[in-house]
């Protein structure tokens, strides 16, 4: 789970309309495309539009410019969408410690994230960031990572808050590079400080020359970031990550559910009506090899 139900729960109305955002992760990309979702016929062919004479051109559609890039251009967005969803499932699988991300509601190319630093110089830091993925993914450059508040760090641009990711991924190679690697890199920089070719020369110089001062600047920076923790998200998006102070009425239950969740999977198997059948003995490839003769359920 990349999204911790306790923090974000921002109370904006648009958010409430989409309840269960935590559960919706797997299908983040869908809402954008969902206007057509209204009536799902069982199958295959789109429904016939009402009142549409079969062959006459409708003015509305006539306005639409033809699809540009050759015959199959119209599927391009689907490929991109699913590539990003696949990346997202990879992130989930990695279970990166202290890092949580969530694609934005508006675009699969923008992911909101937060990173918790648990030890080292930046201990106790909670940094929100946004990941921007180029729209020609996976063939473009590497995704960008921008912190909401520019953290005092040699590799973070003191004005824009952008982390220098490109040094780690000079060329983005499809199939080899994945977004979770970028996130892991974003975490690593806070534990292993690198000062070569810094975006923030001041921080780099301080780290090399006066660590004590560097440390105190870092502490200040961490404090600053944490003091803005409860600010409204910088980007207005229903899925933006936002924090609110602990409110037992809201959060206790969520917390309980989180802890209960761990135990559930095994129980689930028993409770859920299983529709599949198998009489194959594990380790065998013969049908009906199970000895007990009673179907597993």
């Amino acid at each position: 789970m990349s999204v911790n139900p306790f923090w974000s729960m921002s109370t904006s109305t648009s958010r409430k309309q989409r309840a269960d955002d935590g559960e919706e992760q797997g299908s983040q990309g869908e809402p954008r495309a969902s206007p057509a979702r209204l009536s799902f016929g069982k199958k295959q062919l789109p429904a016939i539009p009402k009142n549409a004479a079969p062959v006459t051109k409708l003015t509305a559609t006539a306005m639409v410019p033809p699809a540009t890039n050759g015959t199959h251009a119209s599927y391009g967005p689907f490929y991109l969408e699913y590539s990003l969803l696949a990346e997202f499932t990879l992130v989930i699988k990695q279970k990166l410690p202290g890092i949580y991300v969530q694609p934005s509601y508006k675009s699969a190319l923008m992911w909101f994230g937060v990173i918790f630093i648990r030890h080292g110089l930046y201990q106790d830091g909670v940094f929100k960031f946004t990941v921007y993925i180029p729209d020609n993914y996976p063939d473009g450059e590497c995704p960008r990572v921008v912190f909401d508040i520019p953290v005092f760090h040699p590799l973070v641009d003191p004005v824009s808050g952008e982390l220098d990711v490109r040094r780690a991924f000079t060329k983005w190679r499809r199939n080899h590079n994945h977004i979770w690697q970028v996130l892991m890199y974003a975490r690593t920089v806070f534990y292993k400080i690198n000062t070569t070719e810094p975006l923030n020369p001041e921080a780099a110089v301080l780290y090399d020359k006066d660590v004590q001062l560097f440390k105190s600047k870092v502490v200040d920076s961490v404090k600053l970031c944490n003091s803005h923790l409860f600010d409204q998200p910088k980007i207005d998006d229903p899925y933006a990550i936002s924090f609110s102070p602990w409110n037992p009425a809201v959060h206790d239950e969520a917390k309980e559910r989180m802890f209960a969740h761990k135990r559930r999977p095994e129980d689930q198997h028993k409770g859920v009506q299983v529709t599949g059948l198998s009489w194959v003995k594990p380790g065998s490839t013969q049908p009906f090899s199970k000895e007990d003769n009673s179907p597993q359920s």
Partner: protein
Amino acid sequence: MMASMVANGNRDGQPLVLKGVDPETCMIVFKNHWTQVVKILEKHDPLRSGGGLPLLASISLGVGGSGGIRFGPVPSVDEASAVQNYVEHMLFLLMEEDSGREGAMGPILEFVVMENVMERLFVWSLRREFSDDMKLEQLKMYEALVGQARQPVLHHKPVLRPLMMLLSACADTEAPGVEGQLVLLLHQLCCVLAKDPSVLELFFHTSEDQGAANFLIFSLLIPFLHREGGVGQQARDALLLIMSLSAENQRVAEHIAQNTYFCPVLATGLSGLYSSLPTKLEVPNEEWHCLHGDDWARMPPLVQFLNSLEFCNAVVQVAHADIRDQLLGYIYNGFLVPVLAPALHKLTLEEVMTTTAYLELFIRSVSEPALLQTLLTFILLHRHDNVHILDTLVSRINTPYQLGTVSLALFRTLIGLYCEDVMLQLILRYLIPCNHMMLSQRCVVRERDCYSVSAAKMLALTPSCCTPEHAPPPLRQLDSIVWTRGHAAGPGNHGGATDRARGSQSDDGSSDVCVIGSEVHLDVSYLHYLYDARLGISECMRACQVWSAPYDGRDPPVEDYPPPGEARLGPAAPPLHPPPPPPPSTSASSSSSSAQHRHPTLAPPPEPASTNQQELEWDDSYDACPTQGAGGAEPEGGQALPRPPASEPPQHIQEMRRTAIMLVRGSYVEESDFQDDVMVYDLVAKRTTADAAGGGADPAALRAPPGGSALPSDATEAAGDGPSRADSSAPASAPPSPGERDCAATPESPRVDDLLTQYQELIGTLSAEVGGGSGGGEPAACPAPTLEEEEEEEEEEEMEGMEVDYSSFSADTPEPEKLQSPLGAKHPRPGGRGHAVPFTGPFVSVLLSRLENMLENSVHVNLLLTGILAQLAAYPQPLLRSFLLNTNMVFQPSVRSLYQVLASVKNQIEDLTESRKDFPGMITAAQHWLLARESSLGAADSAKGGAGAIVSEGSKVNASPQPKGVISLANTEVFAAVLFTEFLKELAAIAQEHSILSYIPMEE
């Protein structure tokens, strides 16, 4: 009518109110009435004795002789009605009495017990003419008593015993009214039993008094097992009550399993009912492919069969494991093997098609896993004439006429079960060794297609005439959707998905937010496919959680599996199955042993031990006085089932089964228009032979060897000599003719394993004929058929005929691809099967070969075909997924992939488009027709609730609009082109969803 009055008293709304009446007063009234009754009774009692035992003796005589022997003068009408009046009141008082303290008997009941009132009344009723009316009266009396008494009256033997005698006396009745009342009372007793199992002991105990441990209530119900209508239903309900009782009560379970014929009657009853099903179904139209509710509701015999099947299902569900296993064993050996297997191998396409449709319906009707397992074991493992049923069924997919379509429907149902065993036998076992792919590709099996490469490649096969841009607007469902490529971060821009407004350039100037709004036109229908794919895959993944292995190329391990050559043969060879099933033919024919033959996994505990067999009771064997009643108490047994002599019960199970089989066989053999079908078949065979001969010398040569052994002439003979052929061959396909069967099934028979050989032969023949003799040298390699092979060869011949005939349909549109069909030319002859020839199994091959011929298939066949393939593609097992959907995978040259076949179809369509100017116009017309069909189906489905939508697709006759004049359904290639395009989208959507779903950790 003493009983009727009592029974109806309360219902009529004029109950005699006893509230507030002093119990002692009631007692006094009761005794007074009884005294009056006794006076009349004794007047007619020759023995003038109040004792119980002599009474009993006389009763049994009375019962058995059915009024033959009477004592004293017949009571006068006045006397009878006086008794009746008294008894009415007495019963009423008895029913209204409450139990005494701590469950003690109330005084009236105690009096009834002491004075043996009920028994004496029963004797009295015998003394008068024991007519059906009298029985009815008595039954109603007990029904009232059992149903309304406030005390547990059945706990007392003086009440119970006459009841049992009455039941026993009613057993042989044939009057519908009495039957109905009897079953009603039995049902009531079963309800009492279910609520109060302590009574059970008494039922057994009472029987023991009579020298046999039996359970009369149960036995009496058995003859009604297969009865139609309300009586049958009530009897089955009552039996189910006892079945659930058996789950808790070992004694009941043992009794039923060991001392009754319940299981054999139930199972062989299926055979009997099956025999009355039509052997040929009328096919309403070409679209028809399986039996639906409205189809079978119009066929009473089928309704009755399904009722009994449903009952079996229920018994399996609730009964004790002993009973369940025994029943399953009998269903397997008493119905599936001796009846259904031969029926699946009838001589005409129509009959075989009908049986296949029944089988498909049966599978759909069964819900209980254990029963389903029995059916599936039969399909997957049983061998008829040395060929697995499954293989026969698979080979029929490629037959012309309705049989191929119905077979497809059967496999769609099978695949939809999400059953590991089915999938293993059909496909997975061929994929496990991984030698269908290049060695280097093994690691690719589990790879995920992160960037939808496969989907893109599939969609790139879209024929040029069918691209969305070519479709006129209403068909071209391009919706323009704002694809926010950048990040619409401007304040107030909450648009999200549905927002058509372009994401405006954000004005806050923050450099990290770049917004490039752009409209992209999406094929909206593709969203539907994605959604359906998501649902389908998720459901499949959930279902497959119970599977034993992930089938990912590592588990089960590649190397643990026998090399492919053997792997194919493996499942056909009995030794690989832990306890080998007995050769079906012997089990059905050798009478002494067959009862013990059961399929290993189904094997119930050994046949009722021979020590018990002496005590086997038939359902009527409650005998009030065994010593004297031998002559008179014979009658019952349920109409269809003869009472077995007590000495050798197993023989009778045997006989019963045989009777059922004979019935079945009889009705098949004597079918009047059998002859016509033989002739039709013969014509087909001749035509194909002719075609083959025309195609070149080689195919003809291929046919020659079997021809030399007089086989092909078989059909010719049949045409001229129909009846004799029918006579001689029909028994041959039904097991129990011991002699021939046994020799055919001798284990020495060299061809144990040969599905594959046959299959390849078949394919070889097919391609040889299509390709005009590309399989030149093959006939030489064909071994001369041995005697044992003949029958099989015959079957083969038949199938061959079908195949060839089918392909001859397409002969007028030869496709270059066909000449290099991977199934034919590239496959070595069976002689070479020792090598590990990569082979993905007959099922996949046959599906792909039908798919390749998509342009010649009817719309409905194509819908079924693509439906099956889409369902297969939804399975999450990496082996299957990579084989069907991974377009980057490199397979062995001899292995045909789905993608290759799709590419071939695309080329065929492109060729057509070029050669026919009217093609694009027809495409549009076909799209309109399909859309209209789709919408009407959608409407029908939403009315019914979506669940059945998939199944019903293509099945609704009325829902299909006629093509709008412009295009006829005969233009299969046009419809196929449209369906092909849609199928590509469906597959691409499935591939895309797999790239996400199959990798989400299970906790999600």
